[in-house]
């Protein structure tokens, strides 16, 4: 079953490339199991990392069940490690090279968009942890409750500018 799930995920990932990842991902979120959505999210994250130039990571479809939420509150990193290890052939990025540290090194600006508060908390916790272990000045500038977004940027932007940036990025579907 595990292999079948992975196969489906990779097929879906291929479709994702073809027809636009964000739309396909939205569809995937509706029809696939949460676990598979998580796998796909991680696949997408990896793909974005490989591009060496992150524009945005959408956390929106990241499905966190209640039980998972409780785990995250207890020890977010354990869950993060576990989820990363679920991906075939993929080592724990958290252990080997902190994801966000990597992002901060190569990225000028990135955006993490989430729809729910607990997803933001998840990301925030990850960033704070990364900041601590890496000793890297976290360039997170703003947390906008209204937009449910976190901005990873080394450039100071006003809330209006951040809003415009997010909207324009959504319009061009930069993840496609």
């Amino acid at each position: 079953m595990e292999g079948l799930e992975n196969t489906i995920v990779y097929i879906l990932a291929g479709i994702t490339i073809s027809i636009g990842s964000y739309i396909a991902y939205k569809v995937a979120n509706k029809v696939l199991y949460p676990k598979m959505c998580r796998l796909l999210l991680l696949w997408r994250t990896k793909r974005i990392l490989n591009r060496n130039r992150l524009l945005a990571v959408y956390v929106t479809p990241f499905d966190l069940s209640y039980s998972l939420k409780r785990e995250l509150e207890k020890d977010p990193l354990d869950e993060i490690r576990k989820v990363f290890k679920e991906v075939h052939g993929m080592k724990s990025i958290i252990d080997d090279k902190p994801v966000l540290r990597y992002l901060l090194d190569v990225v000028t600006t990135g955006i993490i968009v989430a729809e729910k508060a607990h997803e933001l908390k998840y990301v925030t916790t990850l960033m704070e942890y990364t900041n601590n272990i890496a000793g890297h000045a976290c360039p997170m500038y703003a947390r906008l409750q209204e937009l449910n977004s976190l901005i990873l940027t080394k450039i100071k932007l006003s809330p209006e500018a951040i809003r415009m940036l997010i909207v324009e990025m959504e319009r061009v579907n930069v993840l496609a």
Partner: protein
Amino acid sequence: MFLRDEKKNTFHDFVGFLQRISERKKGEHIDHTFGNLKVYFIGKNEILKKYAVAPYYRRIQNDTKNGTDVFYLLAHGNYHVVAADVLATLLSQDDIAREDDKYIGEITIEGKKIKTAIIRMVRSHGFTHEPLDALESEKTCEIISEGTEMPEIGEIPSS
């Protein structure tokens, strides 16, 4: 929309453009154009009190005719937010541009909650108005550029 047609580094250029907007000083004139995108600050009390939104309307009408496809209306404070909303409605009604994204709410800046409007508008395909004559356009631009100081981003307008 507009990014797709630009070069590889357009994203970073756009961030730079937004940075300039974010860091502009009070009364400072900055280029509010990025490709076919423009940003309009609805923030001059004198203009709004004397002419309402007419100068903004005319300028946008002219700019739209001359190639602006996408533009933002930005406003801080209750009075200006209402003006921006009215302006957007007028532009929509006259089929000059349509609202594409709209945020009107409070944004917390340096601990203060400020009523803010961020309205994205896209030029209507059916827009066929003739451009204003040059003199009138210049006057309109002049009125806007010589208006009273507009509030900075993060500053609460006195009105």
